């Protein structure tokens, strides 16, 4: 038989109505992957990009060299931040359904990524997030009211009504403005890190994209500049298996891990269980120290699952089994950390219930305050003149004229 070339089409593992099938997912037992020195040579640590770094085992015990040995108090704070992120998400989703805001995106099932990483970094490290990293804001302590006001495009909106909901920014908190255009932040984070190195400062830059976004050319620009200049940066790919309706195989995850692109570019690559709070924290600490001490950048792939719809405009029942998330082999990050704390004797169902209730109240109170400043449909509105500001530092004549024209048009 003569051989012929053929076009390979990545195949989804299960479709609506079928049994969820995660047999494609390669994992390692908790504790199995050794932790190398932070300045190990890239060629000596290739396995880190193939294996899966995990710390929490099936009995909720932290095992192996990657155990970050965090204080109980920090674990409890991590749990609190993750739970708050989830409760906040649920409430904002409902607000969108009630027509109070136009759009929302949850990070259900991915809370450990932003929360553990945010906690493992220093407050002055510069963050270049994607749209599903709201946990970073929770860790860095931005009041929920401020986030809600952005979602409502109201009179206290940090973006002055210019951005789609969830596209936050926070200059003092060192969190960069989120773009609607995927992956643009990746090379920018590298440039920020290069500047830190040029200035001789030891702050690092950290950026996040989804696995789908790693297809964009900007991913490759970032990887190349980071490795050429050994920039003090951590580049994260959050592999939540889905990019809207498209399975991670279409981003190139079928033949090899995303983390393996790190060594391909000559930089460290780590594949981590993204639902394991301790493992995420540990690899981030490792990568941060590596970056801060001049040993170069790291690409981290977080293996996780997008538990929610892509956004409030999406219906995943069209493209994946309804119970896919329930069957996800790496579990729920909140539940896993909770069970770990219980196993340590430092937490209980009662305390968990009480915490959830406290956070619910906090979210509800914040919401009550936020809507006083206006919603998409009611209440005080931003001054429309704001539309013309910040296009340039100084408003040119042409925009001033257009502002006047709008005032006339609106009869003010």
């Amino acid at each position, binding site marked *: 038989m003569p051989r012929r070339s053929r076009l390979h089409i990545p195949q989804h593992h299960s479709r609506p109505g079928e049994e969820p099938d995660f047999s494609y997912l390669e994992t390692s037992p908790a504790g199995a992957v050794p932790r190398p020195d932070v300045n190990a040579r890239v060629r000596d640590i290739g396995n880190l990009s193939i294996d899966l770094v995990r710390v929490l085992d099936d009995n909720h015990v932290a095992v192996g060299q990657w155990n970050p040995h965090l204080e109980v108090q920090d674990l409890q704070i991590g749990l609190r931040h993750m739970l708050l992120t989830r409760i906040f998400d649920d409430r904002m989703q409902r607000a969108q359904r009630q027509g109070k805001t136009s759009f929302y995106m949850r990070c259900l099932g991915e809370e450990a990524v932003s929360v553990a990483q945010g906690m493992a970094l220093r407050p002055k490290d510069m963050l270049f997030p994607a749209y599903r990293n709201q946990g970073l804001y929770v860790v860095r302590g931005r009041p929920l009211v401020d986030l809600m006001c952005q979602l409502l495009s109201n009179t206290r909106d940090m973006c002055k*009504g210019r951005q789609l909901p969830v596209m936050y920014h926070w200059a003092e908190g060192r969190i960069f403005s989120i773009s609607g255009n995927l992956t643009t932040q990746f090379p920018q984070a590298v440039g920020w890190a290069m500047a830190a190195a040029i200035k001789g400062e030891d702050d690092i830059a950290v950026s996040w994209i989804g696995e789908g*976004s790693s297809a*964009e050319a900007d991913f490759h620009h970032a990887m190349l500049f980071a490795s050429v200049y050994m920039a003090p940066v951590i580049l994260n790919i959050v592999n939540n298996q889905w990019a809207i309706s498209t399975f991670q195989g279409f981003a190139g995850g079928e033949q090899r891990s995303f983390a393996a692109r790190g060594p391909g570019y000559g930089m460290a690559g780590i594949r981590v269980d993204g639902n394991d709070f301790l493992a995420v924290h540990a690899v981030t600490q490792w990568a941060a120290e590596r970056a801060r001490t001049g040993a170069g950048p790291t690409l981290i792939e977080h293996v996780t699952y997008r538990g929610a719809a892509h956004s409030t405009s999406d219906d995943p029942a069209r493209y994946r089994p309804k119970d896919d998330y329930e069957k996800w082999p790496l579990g729920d990050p909140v539940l896993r950390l909770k069970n770990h704390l219980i196993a340590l004797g430092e937490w209980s169902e009662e305390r968990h219930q009480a915490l959830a209730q406290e956070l619910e109240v906090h979210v509800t109170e914040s919401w009550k305050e936020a809507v006083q400043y206006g919603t998409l449909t009611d209440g005080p509105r931003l001054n429309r003149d704001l*539309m013309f500001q910040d296009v340039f530092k100084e408003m040119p004549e042409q925009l001033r004229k257009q502002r006047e024209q709008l005032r006339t048009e609106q009869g003010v």
Partner: protein
Amino acid sequence: MPQMNMIQALNSAMDIMLARDPNVVMLGEDIGYFGGVFRVTDGLQKKYGEHRVLDTPIAEGGIVGAAIGMGVNGLRPVAEVQFADYIYPACDQIFSELARLRYRSAGDFWAPVTIRTPCGGGIRGGQTHSQSPEGIFTHVCGIKVVMPSTPYDAKGLLIAAIEDDDPVIFFEPKRLYNGPFDGDANKPAVPWSTHPKGEVPDGYYTVPIGKAEIVRKGSAVTMVAYGTMIYVCEAAARALGIDAEIIDVRSMVPLDTDTICTSVKKTGRCLIAHEATRFSGFGAELSATIQEECFWDLEAPIGRVAGWDTPYPHAFEWEYFPGPLRVAAALKAVMEAA
């Protein structure tokens, strides 16, 4: 005749072309199994297979670059860019390659690529789901640029675009997908099923690229527009009771100067409307051309009404959008000028 909305009409065009020509292929993000985020390619992968309707990685530069290669190798690719706001990563492939391949190879290489992309605001999409970048593409010689305003034209123009041996960027005004929209967001939505241009033949037909259409006859002034602005112009003319002639440009490149200028010479007045930002927008080209051709027949300066020269702000969508109020004010100014 069947009634279709613009989504169904576009889908029908692609269905027909996939069936007629085995070289037609489609590629884009979420277009296959899922059928596209606006469902424009719904059912096509199921019907024609995964080798004809390809889901792609999220890489617009890769999509257009690969489409060019496929086109050079004999296929007739129809690429979807999920939102016009996300076409920029593909711009080098479009500007430097797709648009110039025929010229630089003296006609020996060319790629019959169609790029479909939804554009325009009015869906609360914020600054990255609302843009109208058509003017940028008209400035690059070597690509055709079209934008339909009705289901009938959408289907006929898309078939023509796919059959065209030159590259075509096909802008889909997404606010018109489900019905004509006159810019008044408070009015209930009007479906295409109640509109004469929602009548779309089931079978093959084309609407020629390069022909404008007079959508409303009139003698007092010529309103030149395309996409969503057609309906805003109609609403403004109706509100003021002005006997305006309204021309749907449909094809920006090549431009039907004849139809436009014949009308302006007849009416002596002209207002140009588009949703895109005003400065260096396609309206500037229209205005210059009309001025050159019709100067001695003009009774008043040509008017232009457009989006403001700012990004599309989420909270001020309706203050940004050149709605009936702004168009009516501009129309009045053109009518009252000496």
